[in-house]
């Protein structure tokens, strides 16, 4: 026993040494989720896609507000009705020293739809391409199947792989499994891949020949820490220098701590409610003699006016949200500056319900997820009690996100809550998937599970994505949004989440609207 006691101080000293921070120029990041693959083209899930941008550059980048800026492409323009020309950056080097050329872009564009077993293919961003032509090493022409002004947007959400580095015997070249092991995982991005210990850490190292700003970190170590309390603890103890996904209740304490800084930004995550505006009889409604009240836009508007968005933002979200009028924040392409969030007006809501033939309201079951989104349970309860106050007796049917998606997709709900992400940083893509009339073989209405449909909106969206004039395209999107949000109340948008990051005071962070956590946005504090 006494021999053991003699060892105790030695163990403690060793532990102290081990817990001391690593080299000063390392950046350690606590992530709330781990990418499921290192293959940048395997799964169109934002965590995978956005992580890949450390290693693989995009042709066109999105800045912290999702505006486009040159990446591997220096400039791009339409040279014919269906033809885009991209001028590529010269002198760009891959991590292995090879030069970047148009060949690599063509390789990538062919690889994306060829990756097998993709749970959700990035092929949606290349499906508009009819043919590709390499004019010279640094000029690429792309012909689309139809006039498509949004091609640069689509090209801003996937990374470019090297033809030489990622070629292989199968159609996709290096397989997902090879890439997960680091084989062929060579890009032009600011950081090189070092190792991935699944569940524990991903290590990257600075790419010394990176074409952009010189990165301040020798190494970046990403640690997946899913529990938000554990992430905060890891930051406070100095295990990591930067964490993402700080939950609202932790913020006041962190803001007071002088060793820590908090950075927040509005995000492209919009929380919304959709109604079954398709069926004559709808499963979650009773007390209407079998009628579906949501086929009447007055009812949908009434329920929007019955929601106190300000209260949800200030009480439930603790200020970490902004009331919303449409699915993308006001600074994005296609946002309609004339639209304001619906005011809180319960009296008008009651009048509208009476005018629609429901003076005594009805009973409703609101479907809602119970996880994934920030404070989603509290939000659904609040909405239910606000609706009950104007006479629509609402109960919440909450289920975990896995079950929720399947139930929603089987049309089990008459009204449901959801969240959307504006990946492309503009209006049309999101409006297309969530509010266009659903079709089987395209992205139109794929998450429009209320089956809202207005031919005029479909027409405007189609015109917007094929107009060759940018201003015209913007106007058409704005009009489509106005019809969905204000004329039809086809969906009720509640708010945009604000997302928060926290750093040790030795690090500064530039938060992004797209919710990504980029080592490139972190700098040593002066």
């Amino acid at each position: 026993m006494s021999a053991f006691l003699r060892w105790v101080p030695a163990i403690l000293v060793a532990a102290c040494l081990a817990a001391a921070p690593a080299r000063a120029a390392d950046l350690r990041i606590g992530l709330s989720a781990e990418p499921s693959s290192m293959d940048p083209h395997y799964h169109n899930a934002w965590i995978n896609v956005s992580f890949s941008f450390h290693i693989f550059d995009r042709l066109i980048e999105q800045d912290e507000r999702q505006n486009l800026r040159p990446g591997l492409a220096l400039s791009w323009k339409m040279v014919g009705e269906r033809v885009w020309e991209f001028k590529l950056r010269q002198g760009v080097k891959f991590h292995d020293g090879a030069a970047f050329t148009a060949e690599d872009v063509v390789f990538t564009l062919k690889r994306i739809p060829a990756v097998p077993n993709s749970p959700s293919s990035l092929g949606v961003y290349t499906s508009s391409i009819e043919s590709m032509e390499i004019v010279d090493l640094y000029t690429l022409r792309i012909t689309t199947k139809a006039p498509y002004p949004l091609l640069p947007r689509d090209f801003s959400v996937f990374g470019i792989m090297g033809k030489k580095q990622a070629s292989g015997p199968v159609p996709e070249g290096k397989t997902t499994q090879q890439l997960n092991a680091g084989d062929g995982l060579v890009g032009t991005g600011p950081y090189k891949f070092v190792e991935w210990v699944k569940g524990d850490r991903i290590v990257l190292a600075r790419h010394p020949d990176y074409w952009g700003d010189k990165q301040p970190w020798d190494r970046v170590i990403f640690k997946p820490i899913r529990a938000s309390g554990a992430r905060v603890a890891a930051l406070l103890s100095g295990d990591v220098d930067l964490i993402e996904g700080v939950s609202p209740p932790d913020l006041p304490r962190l803001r007071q701590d002088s060793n820590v800084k908090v950075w927040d930004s509005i995000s492209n995550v919009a929380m919304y409610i959709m109604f079954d505006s398709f069926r004559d009889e709808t499963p979650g409604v009773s007390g209407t003699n079998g009628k579906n009240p949501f086929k009447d836009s007055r009812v949908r508007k009434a329920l929007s006016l019955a929601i106190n968005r300000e209260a949800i933002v200030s009480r439930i979200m603790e200020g970490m949200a902004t009331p919303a009028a449409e699915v993308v924040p006001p600074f994005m392409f296609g946002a309609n500056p004339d639209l304001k969030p619906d005011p809180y007006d319960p009296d008008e809501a009651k009048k509208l319900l009476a005018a629609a033939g429901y003076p005594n309201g009805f009973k409703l079951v609101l479907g809602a997820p119970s996880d994934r989104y920030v404070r989603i349970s509290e939000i659904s309860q609040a909405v239910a009690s606000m609706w009950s106050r104007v006479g629509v007796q609402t109960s919440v049917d909450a289920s975990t996100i896995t079950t929720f998606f399947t139930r929603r997709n089987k049309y089990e709900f008459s009204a449901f809550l959801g969240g959307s992400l504006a990946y492309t940083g503009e209006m049309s893509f999101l409006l297309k998937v969530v509010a266009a009339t659903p079709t089987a073989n395209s992205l139109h209405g794929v998450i429009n599970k209320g089956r809202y449909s207005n031919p005029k909106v479909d027409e405007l969206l189609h015109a917007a994505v094929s107009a060759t004039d940018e201003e015209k395209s913007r106007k058409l999107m704005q009009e489509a949004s106005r019809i969905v949000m204000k004329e039809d109340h086809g969906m009720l948008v509640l708010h945009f989440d604000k997302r928060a990051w926290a750093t040790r005071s030795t690090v500064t962070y530039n938060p992004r609207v797209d919710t990504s956590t980029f080592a490139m946005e972190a700098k040593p504090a002066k």
Partner: protein
Amino acid sequence: MTVVILRRLFQAVGVVFTMSVLVFIGVYAIANPIDVLAGGQSSGVEREALSRALGLDRPIWTQFFIFLGKLASGDFGRSFVANEPAIHIILDRMPATLELAFVAMFLSIVLGIPLGMLAGLRPNSFAGRSVMVGSILGFSLPTFWVGLMLILIFAVYLGILPATGRGDTVTVLGVQLSIFTWDGLSHIILPAFNLALFKMALVIRLTRAGTREALLQDYVKYARAKGLSERRVIGVHVLRNILIPVVTVLGLELGNVVAFAVVTERVFAWPGMGKLLIDSIELLDRPVIVAYLIVIVFVFVIINLVVDLLYSFLDPRVRLAEQRA
């Protein structure tokens, strides 16, 4: 001996079969994995293609027999999420969990048995009472809360131990282990202690009860009458007899620790199998869930076997070959 092992293996196969049926039906009843995987970025046509590629378009029982057929040839299926063989993903994570579980068991034994004996030998002393109060706390405090408190005290306020993750590893016999590096040890202390707390309380109670009972037995009186030293009476005669229930319970608990280290792994971001299981359930990654459970079934079977062998070593009255159950 061989008969015993063979019989156990056959039992394990039966359990694996029953369990796979349950998992298949369970996942099928919860939701369609395609809905979780595909998100809002794939058209109906693409979803159908994915469904076909993963074999999810077939009737559930066809899927099940395809799975059984492949399992017979050692193929556990590929993860829907990662597109890698499910068994690789699990075996990758297994050393971390086993390491954590064994260190936790070790802690609960080396701390639990002496403390339990102390409480059994001196039930009315201050120390004995404190140990029992402590063991009540060990039982009743929720693991995640204790975990967070340990992090707060040792990592945040004192700053002497790291809060999360696994430390540096070295390769021992082809397996990545962290207990042979100082960094690794400093990382494993808190989660292992957290995981050990409940077991330690269990061991303390078992040992105390066993000790008190044993002290009244004739053989102890006889040993004392023979003039054996107190040290030998307690350390050999009493200890050996109270070990039997302790070994049984710990054997079963080891399986539990391996299978349900989930909470501790989550709080300490420990890259083990428990964390993987939770992630896989959230994403309805059926091949990984099934493979994980199969691995756990075999872990339980092996542990039970080892416990039986230990029995016959500790108590010569037990003869394995005579068991017919």
